[in-house]
C-alpha cells in the first residue's frame, strides 16, 4: 500500500515518530505490526517490521535509528510516499479480570503505547513502567520511568522498578530487549502470574511464508510474524532465546 508521509520527526535520542496518512480501510489491534518498504527500489531489499504506535487519521510508528534501513527512513520527508504492508500478526488480548501492567524497554514501548490507548478507551486501568538507558532517550510523557544511568526517575532497570507491583493476579504486557523479557519470564514464573510478550525476529515476508522468523516454543517452531508477534510467555522456550 503506497501511502503519504504526513510527518517524520525526531522525538528523542535516535528515536523518530513517523505519521503516515491512514486510508479508511486500515484498522489494527495493539501489538500488530506493519512491514515498511524503505525505498521503492531494491535497496534495502527487505521490508522492516515496526509495531503500530498509534492509529487515528494517521498510522504512527515510533522507531529507533539502529541501522541502514532506519537511517534512510529517518530522512524521509512529509509528502514522500512510503509502501507499507499490514496490519500483520496477532496483537495483545486485553483481559478485564486482571491487574494490567505494561512493561516496556527502550523502543519496545511502541506497541505498549497503542495498547495503553486502547485500555484507556475501554475505561480500564493499567500501570505502565517504561525503561530507558538515559534521560535523553525518553520519548513518552506518562508512566513510571526508569533510567539505567539514573538521569531520570528510578535508577536501574525497569523490571526492578516494577517488581513489587507484580502479583499473582497480574497480567503483564511486555516488549523490549530479550534480556529484559527473560528476566520478566523468570519473575512471572515465580509470582505465578501471566504475561503476553511481543517478540522480535528477523523477517523477510512478515506473512508466514518464508518461515524465516521462527522461534522455538513448547509446541515446536512458531512464526513471530503470523503466530505472534505477541505470545503467551509460557509457550516460549526462554533458555533458547
Amino acid at each position, binding site marked *: 500500500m503506497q501511502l503519504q508521509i504526513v510527518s517524520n520527526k525526531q522525538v528523542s535520542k535516535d528515536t523518530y515518530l513517523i505519521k503516515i496518512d491512514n486510508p479508511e480501510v486500515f484498522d489494527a489491534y495493539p501489538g500488530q505490526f506493519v512491514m515498511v*518498504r524503505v525505498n521503492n527500489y*531494491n*535497496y*534495502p*531489499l*527487505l*521490508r522492516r517490521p515496526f509495531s503500530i504506535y498509534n492509529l487515528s487519521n494517521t498510522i504512527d510508528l515510533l522507531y529507533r535509528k539502529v541501522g541502514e534501513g532506519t537511517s534512510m527512513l529517518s530522512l524521509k520527508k512529509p509528502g514522500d510516499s512510503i509502501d507499507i*504492508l499490514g496490519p500483520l500478526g496477532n496483537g495483545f488480548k486485553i483481559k478485564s479480570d486482571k491487574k494490567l501492567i505494561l512493561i516496556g524497554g527502550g523502543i519496545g514501548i511502541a506497541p505498549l503505547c497503542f495498547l495503553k490507548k486502547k485500555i484507556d478507551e475501554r475505561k480500564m486501568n493499567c500501570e505502565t513502567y517504561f525503561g530507558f538507558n538515559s534521560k535523553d532517550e525518553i520519548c513518552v510523557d506518562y508512566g513510571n520511568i526508569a533510567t539505567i544511568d539514573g538521569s531520570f526517575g528510578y535508577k536501574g532497570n525497569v523490571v526492578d522498578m516494577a517488581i513489587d507491583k507484580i502479583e499473582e493476579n497480574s497480567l503483564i504486557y511486555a516488549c523490549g530487549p530479550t534480556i529484559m523479557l527473560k528476566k520478566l519470564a523468570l519473575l512471572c514464573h515465580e509470582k505465578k502470574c501471566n504475561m503476553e510478550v511481543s517478540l522480535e*525476529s*528477523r*523477517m*523477510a*515476508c*512478515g*506473512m*508466514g*511464508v*518464508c*518461515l*524465516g*522468523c*521462527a*522461534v*522455538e516454543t513448547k509446541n*515446536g*517452531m512458531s512464526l513471530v510474524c503470523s503466530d505472534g508477534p505477541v505470545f503467551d510467555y509460557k509457550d516460549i522456550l526462554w533458555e*533458547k532465546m
Partner: protein
Amino acid sequence: MGKNVNLTCKVANLIFKNPVLTASGTFGYGVEYEKHLDLNKLGGFVVKGLSIKERSGNNPPRIVETPCGMLNAIGLQNIGVDRFLKEKLPKIAKFNTHIIANIYGTQIDEFLELAEKLNNAERISAIEVNVSCPNVRVGGMLFGKDPNMVFKLTSAIKKVSDKPIIIKLTPNVSDIVSIAKAAESAGADAVSLINTIAGMVIDVKSKKPVLFNKIGGLSGPAIYPVGVKMVYEVYHAVKIPVIGVGGIYSADIALQYMIAGAMLVEVGTANFVQPNITIEIIKGMEEYAKREGISNISDIIGSCCK
C-alpha cells in the same frame, strides 16, 4: 497496441497461461497470498518443499539480509507430504492454475516415496525435485553436485511417476551443463535453475555466523546475472525446457531469463518484498510484447544471440 499477446507456454504436456510461476519456499502453500493477488492469474505456483515426514527445520536465526539479497537457512521446515495432501491441497485445488509440488529427500527411496504419494493427487501438475538445497547436511548437496547421482535419482523417479518431472539444479557447481544433461538423459521433462548460492554472514561483534546453520543460500536481485548465465548455457546444451529462477524482481529480468532460454520463470524472494509482484511481471511482459510487436511470448525464448 490493440492486439492481444499470447502468453501461453508449454512444458511437457502442460499448457501454462503465462510463463510466470512462483518459486518453492517463497509462496508458502499458496493460500497465504490469496488476499494479495488473484492466484488464477498465475502461470502456476510451486509449493514449499515437501518431505516424507514433517520437519521442524533449522534453529533460528534463519535469515539475514545482504546487499540486494538475503541468505536463508530454513532447513526445509514443512508439514510433510501427507498433511499437505490432506490439509493444504484441497484449499488451493480451486485455483485455475498449475500447482507444482517441490520435493526433497535425504535418500533416493524418500524421493520415490514422495513421487508415488503425489502421483495420485490429481491437481498436482508436475513435480519439481530439489536436488540442491544447501541447508540440509545429509543428501541434498551431494545429489545435486554429481551428474551420476542426478542421473540415478531422475531415472528412478521417472519410473514411479506419471507426472512431468522437473529437476531443480544448484548453481554451486563447476559445470551445471553436465548436471542438466544428466537429468535430460535420465528422462527429466524439464530442468529449473538456479537454486540459491551458498553464502555466509558473520556478526563481527559476537564473531559468530548470523545464521544458526552458519551457511545459508543467497537469493534475491543480487544473483540474477548468475542465473541468466546458467540458463543461457543450459538452454544451448539440452533439448528439454529450461525454467529460469533466481533474482527475478521485474518483467525486465524475467524477460532476460526467457531470452536466455527459459520457457518459464519462477519468482522467489521478490514475493516477500512485493506480494503481487508476479502480477506486475505478467503485465510488464505483455506490455513488452506489445511494444516490440511480439504476438507469442514464446517466440522470444532463447532468442539471445540468434
